[in-house]
């Protein structure tokens, strides 16, 4: 008994943190979503009014949800494709491969705030790196973050900056594919493309599935870059769901309403994740 106690004492910082800062708020937010709460005064029960107002009387709620969905649909598959391609490239046995891997992985460990600030400069229409390069090619680049037509795409483009994180997982997945499968395919006369289609990709699907699920969940929580680089603008074109939720909670002090938003988001993520899990039977191949 005392031995157990010692163990619990060791993990108590985490346990306390989890109960106080994660599980507690998580559960209380269910109740809060049915209240009017400005953080300061006591929460007042309003029934389903927050949910009703969100679904029927808040255009920005729908708009931000649409923007987030669009981001998930575009950025997540793009990250999967680029991540797999990079992993395939870095799976080759060439001199200095460890250096290339490190270079491509490094951006993913740069804090999001720091990389966002750097990208604000890179995408500056007048003195930015991208438009500077385009100018050399005779192309006048757009005002990336200030133009409604480009701001959203710029953030999607920037999301590739962190693709090194998933790339490493794909690389590990590639290393895990048994060599005898390729040897057997070679004996059967399969070319590189066929080996890729019939062995590499199917064997990589568990890893792709993992990154897809994590990517979708991450996309629905997309916040930092939009908060720092565009603050939802121009003309609300980058008002992501989490950014709007943050504004409602911490700027407009509408915590009950924001809790309702958080729960709707949670349900959406649960449903989409469940759907992804249902589809995996058809395309994810486990076992070697």
């Amino acid at each position, binding site marked *: *008994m*005392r*031995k157990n*106690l*010692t163990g619990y*004492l*060791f993990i108590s910082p985490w346990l306390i943190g989890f109960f106080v800062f994660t599980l507690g708020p998580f559960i209380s937010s269910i109740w809060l979503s049915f209240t*009017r709460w*400005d*953080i*300061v*005064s006591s929460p*007042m029960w*309003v029934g389903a*009014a*927050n949910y*009703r*107002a969100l679904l029927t*009387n*808040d*255009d920005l709620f729908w708009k931000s949800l649409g923007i987030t969905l669009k981001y998930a649909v575009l950025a997540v598959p793009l990250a999967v494709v680029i991540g797999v391609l990079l992993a395939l490239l870095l799976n080759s046995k060439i001199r200095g491969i460890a250096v290339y891997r490190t270079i491509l992985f490094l951006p993913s460990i740069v804090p999001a705030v720091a990389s966002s600030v750097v990208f604000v400069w890179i995408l*500056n*229409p*007048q*003195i930015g790196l991208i438009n500077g390069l385009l100018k050399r090619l005779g192309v006048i680049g757009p*005002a990336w973050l*200030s*133009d*409604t037509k480009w701001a959203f795409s710029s953030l999607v483009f920037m999301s590739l900056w962190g693709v090194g994180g998933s790339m490493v997982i794909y690389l590990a997945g590639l290393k895990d594919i048994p060599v005898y499968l390729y040897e057997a395919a070679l004996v059967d006369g399969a070319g590189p493309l066929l080996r890729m289609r019939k062995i590499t990709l199917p064997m990589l699907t568990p890893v792709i599935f993992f990154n897809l699920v994590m990517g979708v969940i991450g996309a629905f929580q997309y916040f930092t870059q939009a908060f720092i680089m565009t603050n939802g*603008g*121009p*003309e*609300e074109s980058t008002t992501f769901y989490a950014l709007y939720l943050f*504004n409602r909670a*911490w*700027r*407009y*002090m509408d915590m*009950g*309403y924001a809790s309702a938003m958080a729960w709707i988001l949670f349900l959406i993520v649960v449903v989409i994740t469940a759907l992804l899990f249902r589809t995996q039977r058809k395309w994810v191949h486990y076992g070697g």
Partner: protein
Amino acid sequence: MDERASINFGRILTGVIVLFVVAFWGAQIQEQHRHVARKKVRFWHMWTAEWKDVVDKIVDRFNKSQDEYEVEALSVPGSGSDSKFILGVMGGDPPDVMAQWNPIIPPWADDHLLTPLDDLMTPAEKKAFDDQAYPVVKKIGMYRGHLYGMSIGINMSALYYLPKQLRDAGIDPDHLPATLEGLAKIGERLDRFDSQRNLTHLGWGPATFSEFAPLFGGGLYEWQNGKMTIVTPQNLAALQYLAGIRKKLGYDNVVRYNAGLDMNSASGGWPFIDGAMSITIDGQWRVEQLRKYAPTLEYRTAPVPPAAGGPTLAGVSNGNFMIVPSGAKDPIGAWAFIKFWSGLTDPDTAAEFYTWGGWLPLTPAIAQAPIYKAYLKKYPQFQTFVDLMPSKTISVLPPVPYQEFLSDQIGKMEDSALRGTKTPEQALNGLLFAVDHEISRRKELGYDR
């Protein structure tokens, strides 16, 4: 349980206790202050760097001026200051006084986070404030008939212009146009474009609807009956003026031009110093900035002229003000400090503080103090801003409980009109729609009953 595990458990427990003791002892050491016998007044503010030095100087002066209180100043980073304040009040450990500049009075007063300052004032002090404070000072600090914020430095905007550039373009800098329309015309003469029609120099590039609406006789709030006024002919004219100039310059042109400039630079990087724009509109703090970073620059200031038929000396203001939270442990000490800094009862002493920060005064008595007059003589450009203080047509952000929301919506409205994605009329109607929607949403949820 064997003996070894028991010893380990004892060691861990001892370690934890030692850690707590050290942390507690350290905190105690930190909390020690210089004058132990005095009552401690905890003061939070958001200034940093050289501004913090000014604040520390004022605090030091207060601590030396009396022997009852000791003010302890703490610089709280601006981004987290509001939530820290709220959590402090809720947790029963707020500061005694805080210097603010965010639009927080209506929502925080409604939430009972603030102590009405009139509760702390003597009748004589209340009368002095009512009789002497400039109109804009009252507008900023008052909410629902109570004073919640005492100004310690109002911000005003005026024109800054470079006479040399005007002369070079054949414009007499001694006779600026008397109307905004006239200003737009000379602005066109000062604009410069390259062969591909890219803007290379900005003559006059006005922005911010809130600043210009009062110059057309408009504004978003009717102070007499406390109502929002959004879609009015005056507001429409103001937005049309701004959108018209932007359209002529080209929206993309202005965005690109501004993107290369650090418009918010608080040092020598302000583009006006390098002559990137001939005429611009900015706050009084630039006088101090120019003194430090461009002492030889020839520049002038002037009130922004009204639109044809509009009121003179109109505009918009915000500023720094002191608040006392609910649950402050020593509100009386806090009020003593506020009085000292603001100069409500001793304008001659406080006038010096206003010159240290390049701040605008609370009352005419401060403006008339010898030290402040000497400052104005040394920096005549500052006089333009002081002259705006008595104006009754200087507006502030409407005192509604959804100020942050409103502020965001005004920005969006202006943005869409200046981009040309909406006509000024559509943009104003959009703002009206958003505000009405928010009001009805808040009513449905039981706020603002």
